[in-house]
């Protein structure tokens, strides 16, 4: 065997830096827009000015950024690992409920019934708080719950499902059933989470009024930063060897197994991470949207998450974020302009993407690039 020079096949240095120069400038740009530009245009520029960004716009973008986190989480498990979840709304809602419980306690005596207990408990004629609410007055405890509740549920569910080697459509259906079961459970008043009305009428967060423009802006900035942080985290994961094992599981799980990896550990870890990402997204969503109820656990809500990822482009990370903005932007415009036709539009969009853009919006860019590669014969990984 003649000695061969080590091949410099992959730009390892670039992998170390996570993104190229252009990628980083986009990230910094996004952070500046979120942390400087939007607050300026919303708070400083007067309302009459054409450059003014209204409260409605800020709230809408904040909401979509939360959705984008879910789309990103979907991409990690579906786009990269090949596991389609149709039940991630459950984890989103759990994070939301954990935050909502804290916000309910922050209302204090200012509820309609001037009671220590949240209004819905007074309405149900409960005298004491159920045990599930024991730590709800503590912000720290509830924030831990935002992470722990989705992590534990997804961990237990994932462990059993992956260990039994449930795959494909069967797995997707079970995730769907799980979120549906969650919805039914939370619909019940006895469960102790406000029944079908859920939580609303929030007044304060950490003692500060939640309606204050500065509070809203702070939450907006926090959401934007979290989204960027999630993106960078996902990027680091996907670019690591761990990420390549995930993709290998997607492409040929049996080969991964017969190469000595235990797919269970890999699938379970990314599954739990994606659930936690959704939980955190839900926790950021609730104070800004002002309500959480069991409809977030409806099967349709979870399916929409899959649509955001598919429309943007699975397996690209940027794609799902774009997809979440595109679909939800279109949704908010459509539901105002043609309220009856939104669902038709959503269906048509999904069919069109499946038929013509199997790799989503990002696929268009990739296709242009590939012709470039064929011309020059040089391939570079974005």
């Amino acid at each position, binding site marked *: 065997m003649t000695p061969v020079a080590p091949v410099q096949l992959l730009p390892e240095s670039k992998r170390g830096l996570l993104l190229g120069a252009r990628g980083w400038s986009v990230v910094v740009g996004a952070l500046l827009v979120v942390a400087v530009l939007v607050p300026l245009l919303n708070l400083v520029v007067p309302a009459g000015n054409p450059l003014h960004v209204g409260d409605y716009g800020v709230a809408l973008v904040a909401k979509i950024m939360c959705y984008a986190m879910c789309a990103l989480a979907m991409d990690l498990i579906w786009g990269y690992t090949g596991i389609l979840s149709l039940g991630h709304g459950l984890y989103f809602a759990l994070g939301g409920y954990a935050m909502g419980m804290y916000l309910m306690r922050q209302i204090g005596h200012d509820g309609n019934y001037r009671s220590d207990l949240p209004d819905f408990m007074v309405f149900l004629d409960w005298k004491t708080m159920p045990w599930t609410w024991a730590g709800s007055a503590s912000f720290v405890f509830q924030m831990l719950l935002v992470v722990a509740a989705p992590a534990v549920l997804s961990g237990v569910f994932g462990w059993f499902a992956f260990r039994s080697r449930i795959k494909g459509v069967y797995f997707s259906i079970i995730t769907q059933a799980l979120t549906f079961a969650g919805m039914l459970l939370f619909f019940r008043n006895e469960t102790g989470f406000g029944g079908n009305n859920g939580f609303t009428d929030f007044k304060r967060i950490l003692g500060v009024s939640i309606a204050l423009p500065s509070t809203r802006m702070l939450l907006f900035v926090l959401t934007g930063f979290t989204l960027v942080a999630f993106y960078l985290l996902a990027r680091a994961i996907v670019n690591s060897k761990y990420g390549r094992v995930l993709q290998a599981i997607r492409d040929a799980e049996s080969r991964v197994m017969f190469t000595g990896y235990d797919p269970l550990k890999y699938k379970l870890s990314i599954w739990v991470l994606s659930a936690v990402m959704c939980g955190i997204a839900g926790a950021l969503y609730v104070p800004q949207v002002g309500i959480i109820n069991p409809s977030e656990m409806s099967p349709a809500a979870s399916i929409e998450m899959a649509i955001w990822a598919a429309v943007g482009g699975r*397996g690209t990370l940027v794609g799902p974020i774009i997809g979440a903005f595109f679909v939800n932007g279109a949704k908010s415009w459509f539901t105002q302009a043609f309220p009856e036709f939104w669902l038709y539009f959503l269906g048509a969009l999904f069919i069109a993407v499946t038929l013509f853009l199997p790799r989503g919006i990002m696929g268009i860019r990739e296709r242009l690039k590939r012709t470039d590669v064929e011309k020059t014969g040089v391939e570079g990984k974005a």
Partner: protein
Amino acid sequence: MTPDLQEAGTALLERHHQSDRTPAGGASFGRLMHAGTPDFAHGVALYLDEISVSFDGFKALNNLSLAIDVGELRCIIGPNGAGKTTMMDVITGKTRPDAGHAHFGSNIDLLRLREPQIVRAGICRKFQKPTVYEELSVFENLELALVNDRGVRAALFARLSGAQRERIAEILQLVHLLPESHRIAGLLSHGQKQWLEIGMLLAQEPTLLLLDEPVAGMTDEETERTAELFLTLVGKHSLVVVEHDMKFVDMLTQGHRKVTVLHEGSVLAEGTLAEVQSNTQVIDVYLGR
């Protein structure tokens, strides 16, 4: 297969992996054996004893007994449905037999281990249909196959060393894929995918290689080069090749190596290719229906 037996096996192997992190890790000459390290002192790499498997009443394997020596290249032939692939499934832990024993070396009970553990003990398998990671590059395919820690945490922070890159380049050259290293594996030809998969097996430095129809879909030239490649591996690895292509079997056995004929789940004949080809029973099975 009882779960507690399986767990006992797991514990053994885990202990082995904790204790056996020395860089050498080669053959064992008169040293103390670690539990979980295959013991080849008797010269036998793989030993199957009266294995039976049935699917819904159909006996895929019927009291199959087979021994493969260390460093041996054994070709296994047989008509469709003879049980060749099922035999590989049993060895690699994909199928649990209804009866019988399967040992790797003289000490590792394969029936107690799960697939990834069997691989880590040193048995690698090539599937009938080439199975590579279609959307990763050829290089990345091999990177994942290299011998290293298979854990999640190790994979998160893994970086390739210079020596590992060299090893990958070496394997790429061995399987004639060096010029293709950048390409996405899904874009390779069928024959190239077969080679890539063989390369991935070699990267794992296995003791025993199970190759299920490795030259299916290859051109004559590719087949010849594959035979050459396998012959260079003899002695360093034990190889079990399941194949239909008699020309390829002839190239591999070179007139003196043993061929095993399977029929209806058990061994029908064993000997050189010429011997089994003149065996009347074998002729009946292949031609007499």
